């Protein structure tokens, strides 16, 4: 369970990127955080995986206050998460295989198992034929799919995705969402920051509406 209590975030005075955001996401939820550009979606996701700290407020994940975890132990939280970054954050000097394999290599998995998992993850995003290419030779949309494969490869407990379908054609966007749904069915909590209304309407079980850093509404499908 992810609980956010009165989260405030200020990058620069006097503007607040987030103002008093409180929300609860249950384990196994498939939820969207939506809102126009600059509404605070990315900031909120970054706070959840603790890339940045809120100016004020508390966040509990499974009862643990993640703001209190010391820097050298934060890897434990991150290992339970899969993250699709808005800017993909791929390693351009490593092959697609090595990029996707990274979370597993960090855990010291056997190479055979890594190969199997990476191949499956890449097949899910329809990129297995480019396993040995380097990211700079891929299109923007393909790079995004590599980032998605990396986020799902270790079957995370929590999957965070910031505009994961922003550069994909509608067909592929639907396929990606289906992958996320499958991971969600296996028990993972999925949180997606997106402003794609079509996708949200089709897939969203729980939707939080953000505007100018404030939660202005919440919708839960029965």
């Amino acid at each position, binding site marked *: 369970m992810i609980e956010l209590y009165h989260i405030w975030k200020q990058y620069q005075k006097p503007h607040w990127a987030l103002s008093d955001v409180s929300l609860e996401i249950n384990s196994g939820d498939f939820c969207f955080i939506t809102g126009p550009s600059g509404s605070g979606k990315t900031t909120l996701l970054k706070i959840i995986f603790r890339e940045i700290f809120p100016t004020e407020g508390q966040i509990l994940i499974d009862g643990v206050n993640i703001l209190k975890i010391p820097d050298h132990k934060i*890897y434990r939280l*991150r290992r339970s998460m899969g993250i699709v970054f808005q800017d993909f*954050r791929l*390693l351009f000097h490593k092959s697609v295989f090595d990029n996707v394999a990274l979370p597993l290599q960090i855990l010291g*998995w056997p190479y055979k198992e890594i190969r199997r998992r990476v191949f499956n993850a890449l097949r899910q995003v329809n990129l297995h034929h480019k396993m040995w290419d380097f990211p700079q030779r891929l299109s923007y949309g393909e790079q995004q799919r590599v980032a998605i494969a990396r986020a799902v490869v270790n079957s995370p407990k929590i999957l965070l995705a910031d505009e994961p379908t922003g550069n994909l054609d509608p067909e592929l966007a639907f396929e990606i969402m289906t992958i996320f749904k499958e991971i969600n069915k296996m028990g993972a909590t999925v949180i997606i920051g997106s402003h794609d209304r079509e996708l949200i309407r089709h897939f969203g079980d729980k939707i939080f509406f953000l505007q100018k850093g404030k939660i202005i509404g919440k919708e839960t499908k029965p």
Partner: protein
Amino acid sequence: MIFRQLSYLFRAAATNLWNFRGRNFISVLIISFSFLIIGLFLALSNNLTYLGQQLSNNLAISFFLDKNLNSEELENIKTQILASALVETINFIPAEEAFRRFAANFPELKEILDNLKSNPFPPAYEVRLKKNVTSLLAITTFIENIKRLKGVIDVQFNQEWVEKMESLSRIVKAIGFFLGGILILAAFFIISNVVRLNVFARKNEIEILRLVGATNTFIRIPFLLEGSVLGLLGSLISMAILFLLIKIFPVYVGSTLGAARELFALRPLTSEQLIWLIIGGTITGTLGSVTSVSRFLRV
């Protein structure tokens, strides 16, 4: 699991060394240049030390003895002289030998010598000091101690040489501490900044590793390995260049400096100095790398 992780880290370090070969090559060049300067200074300082030792080789002390000493008393004085740690060799010159030497060195005075009724030359102990003895204080203390012994009537040694030698040695040491200190500090500063730039260029990689759940140690190890390899390569290359310089340098210096050539010659580094430079290079590369990475581990 830990072996698989280690094997991954070693492979990652090797791949990174190759992938960033251009940048790494420049780092190695800068490291080797810094160590070359230190090496050059050491080679020059080795030469000055060597010259100092050459001077001390010429240093002989003659202790003139009473003619009437019996063999027991002579042996006693010899034992006292040899007891000093400064002494390399001791040679007894009987009065007859001293007379013969004088006659051989000054043949024009033969007539005067022939007219002498007795041998005026006293017997003596000729003492040569060890090569590494350069302290004037130690030498004068030694001489004073021997002079006080019964049967020693006079002492002769070239004090001017000793004084020159000591002041040269002092200058070499002072230059050594001053330049050596500055060079080592400067080299460390340059190297750690080069490595820091190298790490800075890869700060995205460090961030990504942190965000996908790598521990700090996992992130540090490849950088540590890369830093140590760069430092090691840099210092080895500087040794190779220094070796070539030592071989080639005298050819150029010989024709231009004339008599001062000896002073500016480069003497090869001792194996101890070589080992220290190599260890220094490796440690500098490693430390520079590790401290730089730490700055980016706060994501």
